[in-house]
Every structure is written in C-alpha cells, then in structure tokens.
C-alpha cells in the first residue's frame, strides 16, 4: 500500500509514454503465437451464417404462416408420431401435429420473451447503474447493496422464484427474467459510467464550463452505452435459454401453440418412441442462441479494441 499513490501516478505516466512511443508499433501490444498456420472457421464467414440463421428465425416469428407447411393446431390422427419424412420433414408428435410447423410457430414466443426481457432488464439495469454511477455516495451504496442481494440468488433460480410467485404468462415470464438480469446490467453500466467519468474529455468538458446534465447526455452516456449493448446481445441468448427453461418446467406461456421449451417438455414422454420431438426444438434453441452469441462476440471484439482478434 505504501507506494500505491506513487504507483497510480506512475501508471498514468506510463500510459502517456505508451501512447507517445508505442502506439504506432503494432508489435508489443498484441500477442500471437508464431508459426501457427492452422486457422479454423473464419470469423466473418461464421458471423455471416449466424446472421442468416437469425434473420430466418426472425422471419419465422413475424410471418410463421409463410414458412410453416401446416397449421400448428392441425391434428392429423392419421399421422401420429411419424418419423421425419418428405411430408413432415421433422416428423409429427403424439397429436399428429407437424413438428417443423410447431417449431416455426413457437419462434414468436421464444423471441418475444428474449427481446422483451432484455429490453426491460437493460432499461431498468441501465438506469439504476447510471444513477448509482453518477450520483455516487449513499444512493450508490444503497443501490449496489440491493444489486448484491439480488446476485446472491443465481439468475435462473431468481427468475424461477419470481415466475412461481407471479404465476405463468408471457408478461410474468418476461418480468421474472428481466428482474433476474437487472443486477448484471446495472453493475456494468455503473462501471462504465465511473470509467467514462474519469476520462480526460469529460474533465475537459467540465473545465470548459459545460453543465453536468449536458456532459452526461453528450459525453458520458454515448460512450458508456457500447459495452451495455454488447452485453444485451449476449444477454438475449441467455434470456431465450432462461425462457425455454421456465416453460420446460411448466411455468411458460400456457397457450394452444407451445413455445420451444414447452414442446421439448411435452416430447420428453415419447423419448423412446419418437426422438425427433425433443431433438429438433432443442436444436432450434441451440442454433438461435449460438447465432446470437456469435454475433455478440464479434461485436464485442469490434467495440473493445483490446480484445480484437482474440475470440
């Protein structure tokens, strides 16, 4: 501890030196093991594929009727538990419903849960984080302690508890997942705000005499937002997973058309006779989340130059 003040000062100076002397030298800052020629999966091709997958699923959510060959409620007693075939590419379930069509129609709720809960979570978390970071002092302490308490219960469990308390339904599921994700967003936003507030240009703006509100709106918020947005993208994936998990446990949207989690849960009973009922909805979830994560990773690398070329 003795030299920490001096150390802080020195590190500032070091940064200056680095900026002055080394920023033009591409050596040093990045590491890459020499001699490795093997490179699998170009990042851009993968991101492109992920983009196509996500676009397709969004299309499924918007206009399922264009894509699905059958109605999701259409029960064909003549075609119960049929294996994948030309007529039913992903097979049929116990009621003779076409699994592919069910998956296509189920996209909407899964996506809706994901997007809404991320929006609500980011909005609440971002606001709380901004408040805590900007106000500091007591408000900061109180808010962050509150977030710590929320974090003592693992996210899934918190969502589960809230969903159980609220009862099933789309709105309640969204709320449950959103609340459980709030502490994460709040922490990141607070950290960002604190970091950006220490930036030279914020100090410069203050020295010019700009009002605190204008500094917040014109400098701090725009520069703080990027990591939160990246986190929200990756959060979209985990929210969809959480939503699927909740409806798998029976806390989902109880409707005529099952979402992916519910579909899987229903299919569990026929595992030994019809593997396709469980397999394909799960594959849909995985592909969707995987694509979102690929895009999120790529975006994070673009936003954070420190991580460029590392994931």
């Amino acid at each position, binding site marked *: *501890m003795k030299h920490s003040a001096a150390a802080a000062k020195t590190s500032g100076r070091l940064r200056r030196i680095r900026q002055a002397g080394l920023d033009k030298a591409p050596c040093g*800052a990045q590491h890459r093991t020499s001699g490795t020629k093997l490179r699998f999966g170009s990042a851009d091709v993968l991101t492109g594929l992920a983009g196509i997958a996500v676009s397709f699923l969004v299309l499924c959510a918007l206009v399922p009727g264009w894509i699905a060959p059958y109605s999701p409620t259409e029960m064909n007693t003549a075609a119960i538990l049929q294996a994948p075939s030309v007529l039913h590419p992903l097979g049929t379930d116990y009621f003779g419903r076409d699994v592919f069509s069910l998956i296509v129609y189920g996209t909407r709720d899964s996506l809706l849960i994901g997007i809404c809960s991320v929006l609500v979570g980011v909005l609440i978390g971002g606001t709380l984080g901004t408040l805590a970071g900007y106000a500091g002092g007591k408000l900061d302490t109180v808010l962050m302690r509150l977030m710590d308490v929320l974090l003592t*219960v693992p996210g899934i469990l918190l969502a589960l508890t809230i969903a159980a308390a609220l009862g099933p339904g789309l709105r309640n599921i969204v709320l449950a997942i959103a609340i459980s994700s709030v502490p994460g967003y709040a922490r990141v936003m607070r950290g960002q705000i604190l970091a950006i507030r220490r930036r030279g240009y914020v100090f410069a703006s203050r020295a010019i005499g700009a009002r605190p509100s204008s500094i917040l709106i014109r400098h701090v918020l725009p520069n703080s937002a990027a990591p939160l947005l990246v986190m929200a993208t990756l959060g979209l994936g985990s929210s969809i997973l959480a939503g699927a998990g909740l409806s798998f446990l029976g806390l989902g949207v109880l409707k005529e058309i099952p979402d992916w989690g519910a579909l899987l849960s229903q299919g569990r009973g026929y595992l030994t006779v019809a593997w396709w009922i469980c397999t394909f909805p799960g594959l849909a979830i995985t592909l969707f989340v995987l694509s979102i994560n690929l895009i999120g990773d790529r975006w994070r690398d673009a936003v954070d130059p420190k991580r460029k070329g590392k994931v």
Partner: protein
Amino acid sequence: MLQAIASRLASSLLVIVGSLALVFCIFYLLPGDPVLSMVDPTSVSPEVIENLREQLGLNRPFHERLLTYFGDMLTGDFGRSLVGSEPVLPKILHQVPATLLLTAASSLIAIVVGVALGVPSAVRKGGLIDFAARIVGLFGISMPTFWSGILLILIFSVQLKWLPAMGSDGWATLVMPALALGFVGAGSIVRMVRGSMLEVLGEPFVTTLRAKGLRERLVQYKHVLRNALIPAVTLIGMQIGDMLAGTVIIETVFSRQGVGRILADAIMAKDLPVVQGVVFFTAIVYVGINLLVDLSYAAIDPRIRRRGAGQ
C-alpha cells in the same frame, strides 16, 4: 488475515439475511395474490380463501410479517409444506447430499474441462485445441441443459443402453446429469480462461520472463496461468452457483432425487413454504462458495493477502 476472514463472515451473514428478505419480498410484495395463485377462486369458496390468508398471515401488516418470518427462520422453522403438510426443513435436508454431490461432480467437470481447454487454446491460438475450446465455449453457453440432457439420454440410454436414463442410485446415474450440467459451466469457464490468458500474454512482464531465458512452459503455466486465474476464479464461483441452480432442471430431466427436484415439484404445486426453504438453502451454499472464492483469491494473489493483513 483473521480479521479479514471475520469481516468476510460478517458480510456473508448480511448477504444471507438480505437474500431471505429478498425471497420474502418476492412472494409477499410482488403484484399477484399468492393465495389466488394457489387455489382456483372459481371453484373454492371465499371462506376457504380467507382461511388460507389467515393461515399465511397475509392479513397482518408488512413489518409484523417480516419480523415473524425472520423469527421463524432463526428458530429453524421453515413452516410446513402446503401439499403434504410435512415440515419443510427435514424434507430439504434429506435431499441435500444428492444435490451437493451432483453440483460438485458438475463443477469438477466444468473446471477441469474449462481450464484444461482454455489454457492451451490461448497458448496455441488458431490450433486444433483452440478450435475445440471455441466449440465447447460457444455450445456450452448456447445449449439448454435440458436439451443436452435429453440428447445424452437418447444416445446413451435409448440407443446404446449404457447408462440408466433416470434415478439417483449409484454412480452410473450421476454420469449424464453431471455431464449435461458441467458442460454449461465448462463453456463459460473456457471462454473466460482463454480470454484472460490472452490478456495476460500481452502484458509486458511476459516479455521479461522470455528475455530471462525461461522455458516457454514455465512462462505459460507458472506465470501467465496464475495471473489469468485471478479474474477466472470469480467466474468459476458464479458458475458453481449457476450449476447448483441448474439442478432444478437437470434433476427433473433425469428424474433424480434432490433439492432441485423438490423445488420443481413445489413450483408446480405452488407450495410456497417449500420454495422459500430451497431458495434459502441455495443462498447459503452460494454464500459459502463466494467465501471459498475469496479465500482462493488470497492464495493466488499475494497482493490481496497483504492487503488483508492490513498492510
């Protein structure tokens, strides 16, 4: 050092109290009448509903309820299950070992796979192991546990008939649940360890180590890994917590006995006292894990040790 541990214990206690209050708030303050979510008002007479309110103490003022709640918890009285009217605490305690065993096994898999893949993938960036690490990382965070669990059952129980699909007796039943659950944690840990290793590999001191003529193995496994573990340990702690929570789903998928299963059943039966009890148990384990994480910090990073000693 002792003082540091004491203060950590004190704050852990606060966190447990906080999470208890949280659970209380979730059930008693969120919109929605818990009684109405427990019974169907159309089929039950108003007197029954009123009786239930009385029984749950819902008619009393908030602070009084909160105090009673804490008082009951302190004396170990978690109430009785609404379904079988057996006391909650013994019901949960009875199942704790099974769940802890599953969590420990999954954590072991997650940590071993995560570190064993993450470290070489950063060192040989772009190579085969790196490719494997990226696959595990991406799929780990993108696959729903219930789906990977079902896939395992399909392959190893239905097709190959190597492992029992359900039950909780014997080690064979532990394999698949632990794999399904551990895979998720492994995904996150691999990503974290890899990123963190790459970050440390770019630090100036690594150049010093090489300039001293140290063997590359020593540079990477003695120095870089130890520095990279510092941020990774936090994440590992959080992952263990998430795996504990994940038992809710996994125990359901594999029809295993355990605390998670109790919770899943309680949620379906809207058995609120049991839900509370399980969340309380989870919070305690979670706090315990965090305590361990803090202690392992001190073991890895001498700077924290010194600060803890009050220097």
